[in-house]
């Protein structure tokens, strides 16, 4: 049988049963419109949530733990004059753990990672007050507005006075609780490791991971650490404050930084997890809804085509009497489904595009990609829905069909 004849028969059949064809095409159109609208709204929602999560940012701190008895400064002592601090007096600490100094080129290395938005060096030391009480001093890059702000102390945390100014020295910002315990206020003078500092501000940093009692500039902190060292290393750093690109790349950023610094440990608040999970849940829900819509469209198509087949059972039997093979009839039914699905899905895409232009969702728009998804999806669904009717039509002996009235 010629394809042109088959197509003519299919088109004629669809035209003859206009009402049924129109209803089925409308069903396909609604399914396609649903896909286009859903895709547009979903994309807009995803872009928005990505933007929010990217803006929210995610951060972590990396460091390399050291054994408590290790003498960090031993390598920098004059030969034969090792004068390590006593056990427990190790100066570089984080989260109650002694840390090693990090390689000086690490900041530059980490800043090139695509998953990292910002990185800042930090020197966190545990010093001992004259009274014998230990306290934490953090040396921060005061010019950094991203990684430092989210992990340690920022101008927005200042309760009184002002934040550290880059380039200025011997100034300190105190954590509110420490200031109160030491009875210090803005303008007070303090001594850190024998060096005089002036308190320029008091801050409350909340629950930041690189929290300290006293915040000074990175250079001042390094100068404090250098004191007593025979051959101090350049750019001393024991913590890296890292801001990941966004919530979705946080995991990758952590593993890439960990790979860049062998033996390192990472501390993160995992605050990115709920956000990323919510986004994931939304995406899963979206996919589920899309699948449910697809299934509904498929069932409607199946029901319509099945009803059409029941209606045409006798006619199909007559065609078989005339020598139409089951294969020819299968091609005819599939072709009818294909023509209807194509017409319906194109119409549905136009309809979906029109609905999207009126939807109140900000930025909702569907491009050709939505059409490219909707049309094959609907056509595939229609053809799949035709499988059962075709199979049934092919299996029916003509005599059985002729007995139907």
């Amino acid at each position: 049988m010629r394809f042109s004849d088959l197509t003519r028969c299919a088109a004629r059949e669809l035209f003859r049963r206009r009402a049924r064809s129109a209803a089925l095409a409308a069903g396909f159109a609604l399914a396609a419109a649903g896909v286009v609208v859903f895709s547009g709204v979903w994309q807009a929602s995803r872009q928005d949530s990505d933007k929010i999560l990217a803006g929210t940012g995610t951060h972590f701190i990396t460091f390399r733990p050291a054994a408590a008895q290790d003498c960090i400064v031993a390598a920098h002592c004059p030969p034969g004059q090792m004068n390590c601090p006593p056990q427990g007096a190790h100066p570089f600490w984080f989260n109650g753990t002694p840390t090693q100094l990090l390689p000086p080129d690490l900041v530059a290395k980490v800043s090139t990672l695509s998953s990292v938005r910002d990185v800042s060096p930090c020197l966190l030391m545990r010093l001992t007050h004259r009274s014998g009480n230990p306290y934490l001093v953090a040396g921060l890059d005061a010019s950094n507005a991203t990684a430092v702000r989210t992990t340690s102390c920022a101008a927005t945390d200042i309760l009184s006075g002002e934040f550290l100014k880059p380039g200025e020295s011997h100034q300190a910002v105190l954590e509110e609780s420490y200031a109160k315990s030491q009875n210090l206020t803005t303008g007070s003078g303090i001594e850190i490791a024998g060096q005089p500092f002036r308190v320029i501000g008091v801050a409350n940093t909340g629950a930041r991971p690189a929290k300290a009692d006293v915040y000074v500039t990175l250079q001042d902190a390094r100068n404090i650490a250098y004191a007593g060292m025979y051959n101090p290393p350049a750019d001393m750093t024991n913590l890296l404050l890292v801001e990941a690109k966004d919530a979705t790349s946080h995991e990758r950023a952590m593993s890439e930084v960990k790979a860049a610094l062998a033996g390192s440990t990472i501390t993160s608040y995992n605050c990115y997890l709920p956000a990323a999970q919510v986004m994931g849940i939304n995406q899963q829900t979206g996919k589920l809804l899309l699948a449910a819509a697809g299934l509904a469209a498929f069932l409607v198509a199946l029901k319509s085509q099945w009803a059409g087949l029941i209606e045409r059972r006798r006619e199909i039997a007559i065609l078989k009497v005339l020598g139409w093979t089951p294969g020819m009839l299968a091609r005819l039914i599939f072709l009818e489904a294909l023509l209807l699905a194509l017409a319906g899905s194109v119409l549905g895409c136009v309809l979906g595009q029109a609905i999207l232009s009126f939807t109140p969702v900000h930025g909702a728009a569907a491009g050709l990609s939505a059409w490219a998804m909707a049309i094959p999806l609907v056509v595939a669904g229609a053809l799949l829905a035709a499988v059962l009717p075709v199979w049934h039509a092919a299996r029916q002996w003509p005599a059985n069909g002729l007995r139907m009235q």
Partner: protein
Amino acid sequence: MFEARGISKSFRVAGRDVPVLKDLHCKLPSRSVSLITGRSGEGKSTLLSLLAGLDFPDAGELLFQGDVMPSSAMGRMADWRRNRVGVLFQHFNLLPSWTILQNIEAALITGGMGCAERLLRSHDWLKRVGLDHRHDHLPSQLSVGQQQLAALARVMAAEPQVILADEPCADVDPETGEAIQRHLLEFVRAGNGTLVVASHGTFPQELADCVFQLSGHPIDS
């Protein structure tokens, strides 16, 4: 020729099997008119249906010109039917939503015949049965007799070797019945075709070369 060897067929009605044909043996000669007679319910239409491959026997085998017919293979039977057999029903079985012309084309379209040739042959047969002026009418717009003539034209246009006719003249007026008989006999006498008619008396026995009574044995051959 057709040969039935031990054919049995039953139908499941209300949960039980109702036998219609039981261990039937018969031979129907080629290039002749065979008439199958019998009372209602004795299986005339069922036998015709089995010979046409519209249904399959529960047991036994059917032969056509000495070859066993693949009765249980629906696709192969459709091919076999398309190339050799035309079936004429008592109730016409025209495609109700196709015009008369399209009904005739439906029988020719499967063979890959070109559109022009198809139309020529269809119109030719519509002219022969006097319905060319009604070619664009639906079956429901024709009288009962005209519908049977259209069904006859559909069978004839396909130029089969065998025509299996089930009560072809039962529902039509005598004049139309005679016209149908004339065309069918011409198919056998002039065209060397084989005609098998199932009838319980509406087709004259004297026109048949062989009469097969389903309840018993051949009464004339």
